[in-house]
C-alpha cells in the first residue's frame, strides 16, 4: 500500500493545499476509519458486557422477585430493614479495611527486607513468597479449609499440644478472623511486588547523600522512601481495597457466608440471594450497594495514576 508521506505532525505543520490537500484528507479519513475499526471489538466487549449489564442491573434491581412488576426502591427499602443486610455491610468494611491494612504492612516490610539481599537471592525469595498469589484463590482456599478442620488437621493439632482447641469456622468471630487471614495470605505478595518495584525506582544517590549527612535508617525511610513511594502506595492500597471489598472466592469456599451469615460479604450475599435464592432483583440490589464505594475509590486511583504519569 503506498501512501503519501505525511508525518505525524498533523495539519498545523502541513497546511494542505490543492491536490495534496485532497490526498491528505483522504489519508486522514482512512486513518481514522481504521482507528475506529480497530477499537470496535473493544467497544463491543466493554459496551455489551460491562456497561450494558451495569445499567441493566440498575433496572433489574427495581423489579419484584418474579421480575414481572416494577417496584421502584422496594428492594432497597426491604434491605434497609433487614439486620442481616447491615451485618453484611459491617463485615464487608471490616474485612476490606483489616485485610488491606495487614497486606500493606506485610508487603512493605517484605519489600524492604528483600531489597537488602544480594541480587541473586532476591529473585529466589521473591519467587517463593509469590506462591500464595500465583495459585488460583478458590483452590488455595481449599487448602486453608482443610487446615481449619477442627478435628483432624494441622492448626488444632498444634494447638492441641498446648491443650487448646479453636472452632475456626463455626464460631462467628473466629470465622471472621479466618477469612481475613486467608485474604492477607493471598494478597500480601501483590503488595510485595508493587512496593519492591517502587523501591527499586528510588535513585540510590538520594540515600548516599542522606548517609553523608548522617541520616539513620528511620530518617531515610521517612524522608526519602515514603515520599518517593507515596503515589504507588496510594494506588496499590486503593486498588487492593476494591478487590478485597469485592471478594467472593475465599468466603464462598471457606464458610459460604456462615455461621449464620456472619462472614458474608456483598458478593457472597448477593450470590446467595440472587443465584441460589432465585431472587435475582434482590441480589442485583445487594451488589449495587458496592457501586458508590467503588466509584469513590476509582476516582482516587485515577487521580493518583494521572499525577504519577505527569510526574514521570
Amino acid at each position, binding site marked *: 500500500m*503506498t*501512501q503519501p*508521506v505525511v508525518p*505525524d505532525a498533523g495539519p498545523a505543520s502541513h497546511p494542505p493545499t490543492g491536490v495534496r490537500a485532497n490526498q491528505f484528507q483522504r489519508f486522514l479519513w482512512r*486513518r*481514522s476509519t*481504521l482507528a475506529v475499526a*480497530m*477499537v470496535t*471489538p*473493544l467497544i463491543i*466487549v*466493554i459496551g455489551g*458486557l*460491562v456497561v450494558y*449489564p451495569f445499567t*441493566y*442491573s440498575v433496572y*433489574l434491581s427495581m423489579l419484584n422477585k418474579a421480575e414481572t412488576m416494577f417496584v421502584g426502591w422496594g428492594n432497597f427499602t426491604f434491605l434497609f430493614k433487614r439486620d442481616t443486610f447491615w451485618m453484611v455491610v459491617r463485615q464487608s468494611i471490616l474485612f476490606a479495611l483489616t485485610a488491606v491494612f495487614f497486606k500493606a504492612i506485610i508487603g512493605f516490610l*517484605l519489600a524492604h*527486607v528483600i531489597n*537488602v539481599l544480594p541480587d541473586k537471592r532476591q529473585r529466589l*525469595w521473591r519467587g517463593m*513468597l509469590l*506462591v500464595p498469589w*500465583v495459585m*488460583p484463590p*478458590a*483452590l*488455595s482456599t*481449599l487448602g*486453608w479449609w*482443610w*487446615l481449619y478442620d477442627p478435628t*483432624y488437621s*494441622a492448626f488444632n493439632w498444634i494447638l492441641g499440644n498446648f491443650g487448646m482447641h479453636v472452632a475456626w469456622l463455626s464460631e462467628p468471630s473466629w470465622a471472621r478472623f479466618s477469612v481475613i487471614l486467608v485474604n492477607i*495470605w493471598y494478597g*500480601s505478595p501483590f503488595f510485595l511486588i508493587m512496593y519492591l*518495584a517502587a523501591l527499586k525506582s528510588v535513585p540510590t544517590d538520594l540515600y548516599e547523600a542522606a548517609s553523608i549527612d548522617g541520616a539513620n535508617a528511620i530518617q531515610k525511610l521517612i524522608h526519602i522512601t515514603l515520599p518517593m513511594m507515596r503515589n*504507588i502506595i496510594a494506588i*496499590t492500597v486503593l*486498588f487492593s481495597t*476494591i*478487590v478485597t*471489598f*469485592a471478594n467472593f472466592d475465599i468466603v*464462598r469456599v471457606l464458610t459460604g457466608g456462615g455461621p449464620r451469615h456472619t462472614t458474608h460479604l456483598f*458478593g457472597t450475599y*448477593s*450470590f446467595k440471594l440472587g*443465584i441460589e435464592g432465585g431472587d*435475582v432483583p434482590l441480589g442485583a440490589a445487594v*451488589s*449495587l450497594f458496592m457501586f458508590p464505594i*467503588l466509584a469513590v475509590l*476509582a476516582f482516587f*486511583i*485515577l487521580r493518583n*495514576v494521572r499525577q*504519577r504519569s505527569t510526574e514521570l
Partner: protein
Amino acid sequence: MSAKTIKGNRRWALIMAYVCLAIFAVFFLFPPYYMLITSFKSNVEISSQSGLPLMPSSSPTIFHYINLLTETQFPTFFLNTVIVTLLSVAISMVVSVLAAYSLSRMKFWGSTVMATGVFLTYLVPETLLFIPLFKVIGFMGLLNTKWALVVVFPTLAVPFCTWILIGYFASIPKELDEAALMDGASHMQMLFRIFIPVAMPGIIAATIFAFTVSWAGFLYPMAFIYSNDEMVLTVGTVTTLIRGDVFHWGGLMAGALLAAAPPVIIYAFLMDYYISGLTTGATKG
C-alpha cells in the same frame, strides 16, 4: 561512621532480613506444603493422625491422584478449562492488541476518553456484574455451557491487557513508525512487523494476565454453569470432589494441587515478564 560499623550494620540488617523472610516463608508456604503432604497420605493415615500430621507420610501413596484421574470427572473439568482458557486468551489478545494500537498511535475523536474508560472498567469487579450477566447470558442462550465463559472472561482480561499494551506501545519511538510509513508500510504491517515484536514483553505479560483470569475464574462459572459436563476446574474441584464421607481430604488436596499446577508452572518461567508488565501497567499512565 567508620567503614567497620557500616559493615557491621550491613551484616545485622542481613541477619534480620533472613529471620523475617524465614518467618513469612513459613506462613506463605505452609498451606501449599500441607496440601501436598495430605494428597500423598492414605485416608486411614489422615483419619488416625498416626505419626506427626505435619510431616510427610512415611508410606506415601499416589492413590488419590490415580482415583482423581480415573474415577472422577476431573479430566473433563481439565479439558473444559483448557478450551475455555485458550479461547478467552485468544479473543482477549486480539481485541486488546488492536485497541491498544489504535488508542496509542492513531489519535481520533474521543480516544483519550476511551483510554481512561478502559482503565475504569479494569476496576469493575466481577461481583458487581455477575447477576445482570447471568440474565445477559440467559438471553444469549448460553447458560450452563462453557461458551458462556468464553464470552464473559474477556471482559475481565481486556481492560487490563489494553491498558498495559497502550503503555508499551506508547513507549515505542514515533520515528520508527514514521520511517515505516515512509517506506510505504500499512498500519497492519506496522502493527505486526514493528509493534508486536518490539512490545513482546508487554504482550507476554498481557497473555499471562488473560490466562490467569480465565484459569482461576470462580464466580462466573459458579453462577452460569451447573452441569458437570460443562464444568471447569475451579468450581468442579470445589463442588464435586467434596463427597458425603468425611475423609475426602486426600483427593480434594490432590485435585486442588493439580488444578493449580498450570498457572504456577507458567509463573515459574515467565514471572519477570509478568511482574514488569504489572508494575509498569499500574504505575505508568
